[in-house]
């Protein structure tokens, strides 16, 4: 074998092994919330409701929950009653299968389906203050409860699509989500630790955003970081990815409204 060919073969074998190694998911016991990668100060900001700025949105959501709206002149509370009881654990189960759409919908889409169907009101725009507030208020009722998305014959194809997207190299940097968040979590990128990417606290308050934002906003910004074209808000690809991430974080506890740097 000529030296150059030998090198190529050796490189091929190495890359091959790296590929097999890289495909490994994080063992359940080693999973850690992004909370654990934060500074003491940012953790304190999340822990204290009196100082957690995400609570401003939660309070907004509570007001919206009780406000009658749409042609039906109905409030969320008119059907669902007290959110503390009726919404407990709900956000931990989303994205969930919607029979009419024949696919999973995320929490924001579920809220908008209620608005258009039951309240006969126009849907709220993705990332609008009102939609984030309602989602934060609903998800707040699941704080401390384990994530438990339902994976069955109906949702499995979408879970698989989300997983494939997580492991697919894309964008001009030719990166897969898994390369940072499965293979190199805990390592540092420009001085900040790479987290495992568990969506435990959405919608959450990001110091970078100086406001509350959804998981889809964060995912879109990851795509931009990989120099890939980001999917539009509400696109099925993003919901599939959300479903995979929530399954990947199964049994981890909801932290909404979380704070992240």
């Amino acid at each position, binding site marked *: 074998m000529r030296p150059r060919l030998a090198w190529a073969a050796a490189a091929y074998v190495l890359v091959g092994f790296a590929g097999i190694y890289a495909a490994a998911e994080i063992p359940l016991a080693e999973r850690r919330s992004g909370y654990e990668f*934060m*500074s*003491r*100060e*940012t953790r*304190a*900001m999340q822990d204290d409701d009196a100082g957690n*700025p995400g609570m401003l949105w939660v309070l907004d959501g509570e007001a919206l929950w009780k406000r009658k709206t749409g042609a039906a002149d109905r409030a969320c509370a008119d059907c669902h009653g007290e959110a503390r009881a009726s919404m407990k654990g709900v956000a931990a189960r989303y994205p969930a299968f919607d029979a009419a759409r024949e696919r999973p919908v995320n929490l924001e889409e579920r809220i908008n389906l209620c608005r258009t169907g039951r309240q006969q009101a126009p849907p709220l725009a993705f990332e609008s203050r009102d939609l984030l507030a309602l989602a934060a208020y609903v998800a707040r009722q699941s704080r401390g409860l384990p994530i438990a998305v339902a994976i069955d014959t109906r949702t499995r194809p979408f879970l698989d699509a989300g997983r494939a997207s997580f492991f697919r190299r894309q964008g001009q940097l030719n990166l897969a989500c898994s390369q940072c968040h499965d293979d190199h979590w805990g390592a540092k*990128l*420009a*001085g*900040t630790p790479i987290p495992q990417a568990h969506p435990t606290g959405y919608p959450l308050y990001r*110091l*970078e*955003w*100086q406001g509350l934002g959804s998981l889809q906003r964060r995912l879109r*910004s*990851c795509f*931009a*970081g990989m120099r890939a074209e980001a999917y539009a808000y509400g696109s099925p690809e993003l919901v599939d990815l959300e479903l995979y991430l929530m399954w990947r974080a199964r049994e981890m506890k909801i932290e909404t409204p979380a704070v992240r*740097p």
Partner: protein
Amino acid sequence: MTSRREFLVLACGAASLTAATTVGAQIDPNQAALRRAAMQEALRKVVGNAQVRRGKVRLELPPLIDNGNAVPLAVRVESPMTPADHVRAIHVFTEKNPLPDVVSVTLGPRAGRAGISTRVRIADTQTVTAIAQLSDGSFWSDSAEVVVTLSACLEEGLI
């Protein structure tokens, strides 16, 4: 005798120390000089020609910040806070933010304790200064050095 492992630890430590000191060079040096001058001016407006002594004031800031958009800052001033002897004002200044002023607090004996906690924007690795004016007119201060690291995965556009 230094083992190989110890050497590596030492070398990495030295490298990160170098990194910490070079982070400061984020702003154009000319602009940094202008901003420092603006801070001196802002300070003069508050204290005039009075002497500012170190002590009595404690400025609390995390030494290393993972995002400069919301940095917890607390100022505590030693004072009995009585009508005869209390803190009248607390001012916080930054050396390299676009504007030197951060907050100015007006308080008195009814505060019970002299202090404030808030969250501030720190544009760059720099020195932050807190100055308290007591009821006898004297000025006291404390300063803190802050290192700002920027996250790698920021959204494009506005920061």
